[in-house]
């Protein structure tokens, strides 16, 4: 997938409101592969909704989202499965990890599906993110910041054309945020993918090609 076009989309809950402004809602936005985008927003402006629309698990919006010119509303179930497995990766704001599994198992459950990374490579990432000793700990017993890093590793063990990260560093200190950025950007460059980062305040320290305000 080369580009994502947001063609005058608006969450249904905002329909009829006069005070809609910003760079995305009701606008035509083109996100190209290989570029880095930042979506800045205040809380409650629909940032996570946007992620839901792009991942296909929410359909309550007006307008159209086009992947390489094709309206995503026409996607069949198996096409969405393929999209989530091989073209789009999302680090959820709420992480969506499985608390009863260990950190490693949370990553493996995705990697078993994609067979994208070796166990060795995953260990290296755990190590780089300061989680070497947490690999076998249950995620439910980890702090949110640690879970955020596990979720990032999980987001990286798949092929993708676009990587979306919904407030990826909200609970990380600067050192861990930089470490996360480094491994993320290394994988993004390796895959030649586009990146969409959202932020409500603290942002990942990156060289953004374009910034949108919601």
């Amino acid at each position, binding site marked *: 997938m080369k580009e994502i076009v947001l063609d005058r989309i608006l969450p249904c809950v905002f329909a009829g409101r006069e005070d809609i402004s910003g760079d995305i809602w009701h606008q035509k936005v083109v996100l190209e592969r290989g570029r880095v985008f930042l979506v800045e927003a205040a809380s409650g402006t629909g940032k996570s909704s946007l992620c839901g629309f792009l991942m296909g698990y929410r359909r309550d919006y007006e307008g159209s989202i086009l992947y390489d010119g094709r309206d995503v509303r026409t996607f069949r*179930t198996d096409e969405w*499965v393929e999209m*989530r497995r091989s073209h789009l990766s999302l680090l959820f704001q709420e992480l969506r990890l*499985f608390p009863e599994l260990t950190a490693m198992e949370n990553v493996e459950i995705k990697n078993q599906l994609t067979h994208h990374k070796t166990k060795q490579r995953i260990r290296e990432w755990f190590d780089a993110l300061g989680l070497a000793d947490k690999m076998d700990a249950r995620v439910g017993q980890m702090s949110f910041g640690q879970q955020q890093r596990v979720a990032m590793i999980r987001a990286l063990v798949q092929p993708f054309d676009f990587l979306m990260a919904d407030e990826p560093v909200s609970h990380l200190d600067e050192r861990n945020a930089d470490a996360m950025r480094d491994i993320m950007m290394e994988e993004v460059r390796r895959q030649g993918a586009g990146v969409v980062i959202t932020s409500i305040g603290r942002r990942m320290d990156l060289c953004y090609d374009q910034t949108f305000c919601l």
Partner: protein
Amino acid sequence: MRLLWKLLRRHVSPAQLGGFFAANLLGMLIVLLSFQFYRDVRPLFGREDGFLKADYLILSKRISATGLWGETSGFSAQEIDDLQRQPFCRRVGAFTASQYRVSCSLGLQGIASFGTEMFFESVPDDFVDVDLSRWTFNESDPMVPIILPRSYLAIYNFGFAQSQSLPKLSEGVVGMIDLGIQLRGAGREERLKGRVIGFSSRLNTILVPENFIRWSNERFAPGSDNTPSRLIVEVGNPADDAIVSYMDEHGYELEDDKLDAGRTTYFLRIVAGIVMAVGLLISLLSFYILMLSIYLLVQKNAQKLHNLLLIGYSPARVARPYQLLTIGANALVLIMALAGLCILRHYYMERLWAMFPQMPDGSLWPSVVLGLALFAVVVMVNVVVVYRRVMKIWNS
């Protein structure tokens, strides 16, 4: 799959699963056992006579009080035609009775021991299931083959012989005895030899080949009225209700036990049907328990399932552990039910064999096929329902 199962087995309730398991095992066992028992026992009610072909009935007119004063008790050609046209009727044959006097004497090695007046009847040869080369009469070598009712032998053995201090006769011995047959009529008298070639427990007459009756009636009672007073009817299903109502309507009587056997089979079928229905009901309820627990399980794990779908798992793959769980549970139930069936069948067949040594050793395969068919239906419904629940989560 291991991780997926580790994740999704949470909230699997052993109590619910155990409840399903016990109930389904019971239901399946009842269904299979009633089916197998019906199949095993059925031959006892539909036993072949050995001399007459499959499903036949013997029909006569009811003898009413007025009949005593000369009303005909024979069947007219029109009545036979009408019977022939009935849907339950395959073939109709008339009994032809001897129209002359017959006496018969029993003797061993030519020494007559006792004699009696009697009669002969015949039915068309194709109703008689014996080798036709034995079942024929030849004028040039006059030996009359005879089939006797088995009850006659019993009357002789247990009534007459005992009281007269005469030897009891087995069927084999009777077959070796020469019968002296004396035919009288139309001013003639002839002696022939007869030989009992078999006994019938169904046929209440002294049966001789059709060509013998034709020959002897022409010879000893020419021009006599040959209106048949009894008919032999081959039917498709002796338990058919239409038969009974037709007979009642026309004032006919069914003479032998075939209809009773048919009715018994019919009742056996009803009883087996009821038991099977109860088994099916239990199975259905247990299946319902299973479905409910799977529903509950899917519902309790809905968030996890949703997350799996969001990270790229397909609905089919997410549904698979639950589908395999139900398939596994149902397969185990089937295997245990079949094992239970084998044990119980062994137990009741031993008893039945003790009572009916001639009972055929039926096959277990039809029950296995039935069990597999039930299993397939249950598994298919399960697989579809689980998938649809997962799709509901996908669309939520």
